[in-house]
């Protein structure tokens, strides 16, 4: 049992990554009603931008990080322009299929360029970490948690306190009405894509030193972020964050106490159980009646 605190620390840290990606995911659902199946590939792209800028071009770490995130916003807009915009009036299924196509395209472009062998990226800090009681606080795990908390808090402030945040919320709640008020709805949606891509990219850069940078990273993170969304309640922001933490903790504990090879399966088992038992998720609003 003495392992438990250490495992919880690891679980919360990994869960933070899922939460960050899930956050980007849920924002797209809320602003444009898009279920983006390439959300995980945003993380992969972020990590590979970092590989190019830092390992390839030899830029200083901080500069490379900032540039990579900026590139991700551009990438997010391009992504929206190609996979979403032409299909915006055709219902949900074509957009879902198109984002799945995009995820395959991106993963395999990277595979063709870099091959299957993982790339290595360093963490934010050189130091390895320190002990608190009998829990070893790895510096990278700790910084992931801190950055996630800061980003979530920041996003809350932006959404609740600024005019832009309120316009984004308005757009997500009633697009036509937002346009009637003079809110540039299209810019809002593309902006959400850019932000969501940046968030995913940052998550990818943060997790890279732990998981290594490989092609599979995107799909793995993406499906778990989606599972986090459903477990937390589809379309709910606090739900996405909590769902991320829950999956991170459960799979870390599961890997330690039950089975390592099936580590990635725990999220899906939880997902299917939640769908059967409580389909609206932990924080879900009741599924509205419509006719």
């Amino acid at each position: 049992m003495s392992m438990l605190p250490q495992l919880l620390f690891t679980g919360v840290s990994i869960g933070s990554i899922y939460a960050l990606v899930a956050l980007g995911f849920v924002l797209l659902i809320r602003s444009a009603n898009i279920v983006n199946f390439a959300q995980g590939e945003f993380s992969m792209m972020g990590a590979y931008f970092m590989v190019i800028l830092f390992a390839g071009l030899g830029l200083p770490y901080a500069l490379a990080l900032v540039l990579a995130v900026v590139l991700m916003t551009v990438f997010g807009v391009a992504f929206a322009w190609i996979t979403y915009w032409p299909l915006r009036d055709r219902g949900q299924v074509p957009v879902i299929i198109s984002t799945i196509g995009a995820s395959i395209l991106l993963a395999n472009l990277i595979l063709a360029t870099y091959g299957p062998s993982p790339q290595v990226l360093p963490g934010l800090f050189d130091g390895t970490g320190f002990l608190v009681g009998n829990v070893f606080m790895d510096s990278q795990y700790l910084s992931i948690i801190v950055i996630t908390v800061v980003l979530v808090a920041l996003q809350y402030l932006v959404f609740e306190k600024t005019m832009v945040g309120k316009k984004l919320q308005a757009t997500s709640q009633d697009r036509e009405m937002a346009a009637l008020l003079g809110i540039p709805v299209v810019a809002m949606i593309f902006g959400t894509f850019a932000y969501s891509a940046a968030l995913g990219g940052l998550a990818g850069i943060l997790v890279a030193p732990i998981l290594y940078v490989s092609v599979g990273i995107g799909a793995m993170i993406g499906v778990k972020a989606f599972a986090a969304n459903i477990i937390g309640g589809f379309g709910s922001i606090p739900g996405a964050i909590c769902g991320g933490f829950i999956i991170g903790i459960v799979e870390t504990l599961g890997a330690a106490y039950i089975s390592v090879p099936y580590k990635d399966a725990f999220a899906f088992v939880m997902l299917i159980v939640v769908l059967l038992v409580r389909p609206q998720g932990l924080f879900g609003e009741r599924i509205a009646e419509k006719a």
Partner: protein
Amino acid sequence: MHTASSRKNILIAGGVAALAVLGAAVVAPSDGYYLNIMMQAATYTIAVAGLVIVLGYCGQIALCQAAFLGIGAYCVALGTVDYGLPFFVALAIGVVVSGVTGIFLGFATLRLGGHYLAMVTIGFQMIVTMVLTNWIGFTHGPDGIPGIPRPSLGLVDLKGGSVYLGLCLVVLVAVTVYAALLKQSRLGRAMQAVRDNEIAASTCGINIFRTKTVAFGICAALGGLGGGLFAGAFSYISPDQFTFNEAIVLLTMALLGGVESAIGAVIGTILLVLLPEWLRFLRQAYLAVYGGAVIAIMIFMPRGVWGLVVGRFVKSRPLSDDATAPLPLLARTGEVSDTIVLDVTGLAKHFGGLKAVDGVDLAVRKGSVHALIGPNGSGKTTMLNVITGLYVATAGRVRLGGRDITELPPHDRNRLGMCRTYQNIRVFRGLTVLENVVIGAERAGNDVSGTDATVERAIAALDFVGLRQVAHLPVGDLPYGHQRYVEIARALAGSPEILLLDEPAAGLNLTEKGEMAALLKRLKGHGTTIVIIDHDMRLIEKVADHITVLNFGRRIADGDPRSVFKHPEVVAAYLGEARHEAA
């Protein structure tokens, strides 16, 4: 007549195709590269046909077809190699195991929206790959299973390459014929109705959940069938042949060929089995091309290659002018009787704090035309939605012919004879006018239900509304007003006990409104009970025997037209509170 002949055509085409492929298999090289390609194409197409049924017919996303392919393949491989079962027994087990798994998976997720299904199927796909790789004691793990034998059938030895290919091709032809027949069957039409409009499908008597689950089960079983044959074809399988990437390849095949038809599955699979050979120079990037192709197909070619061909070259023919018997419900005569056929008591529907309907009584006499009127937002359509079962009542009871139906789902109410139309037209856009109306005729309680006479009944209903000439056209090609008539014909083809019309004249111009009034008059007096909502008072006063007026979710007047229109509260509800000097 109509369906029977096209069914025969499909069977003849299938027979010819089976002979042709057998011949082709005999002259095909008995070994080597092209044989392998053809085996792969044939076995994959069977699985892709499953996707055509679930995605193309039923409109549900399944991203785990490679998992079902894998389940079928592993059942055959483990069954024959480890447990010494005969090939065809192992194959049957594979089909059953995949099918049952598919039904279970569908059960867990199909009540929810498309994205849940997409993600759960991805998750399931990944779990299957993980189990195949890691459960080494059972599945042999990542090394895979070599030495899978091919079967013999009685005295016929199917072990030779080209003979086995012949078997695969015959199965493929059978599956294609099955898929084509399914599309024209009652189940297939139900699937397409669910795809096009779930709400209308449910009030046409289709059990949405069961239809989707069956589609998913068929898709999974076909995946298992293709996989089992695949195992025999290559005599060696390993987990990496059944990954998520392969699931995407299968999906791309279906989309490229066109998900509307099994022919699309054949075209898409052949193209994509050959494509990697042509794209060999791209090496690993070929999957990236697949990904790009998926996006491009969605944007530029949503109906796939076969869809393009059909759209351009295949023109449907109008129906012949052969006379059909008129609708039986018009042959009846029936005066308005005193029997109450629809009895609604204390009905309430609250949405949170909003009391859309709040304790309304409604007694509809058999054979009468009963109008439900009131200003916008007074609760009329909500009332209709509760009566037909789309909404669950907050309080009150609904009785139809003395039977309490308050708790029944929409499709069971339809079985008891309740048919309706919608204010915002809900037709099945992917189907022709005739097919839309045939779905109405297939109502479970209808006298012709389950027979070929449904087509004749549908034509009779189209004759009644005057749309026989356009019966062969896709319903979306019709002008708005005519789509309303399609909805009415769809309801009438089911010989309803009670017909509920929600604003049949909305969006019609003055001439069309006149025609609608004439049509309703022709319908009147034959014993069919009609409940009608409309805002056009001139239409209402022409047809109604009885009027109930709602305002703010409550009943403010009830009686014959003359007295209701003079009721001061009704005048106030429509024109507003009278100004003092006017009063």
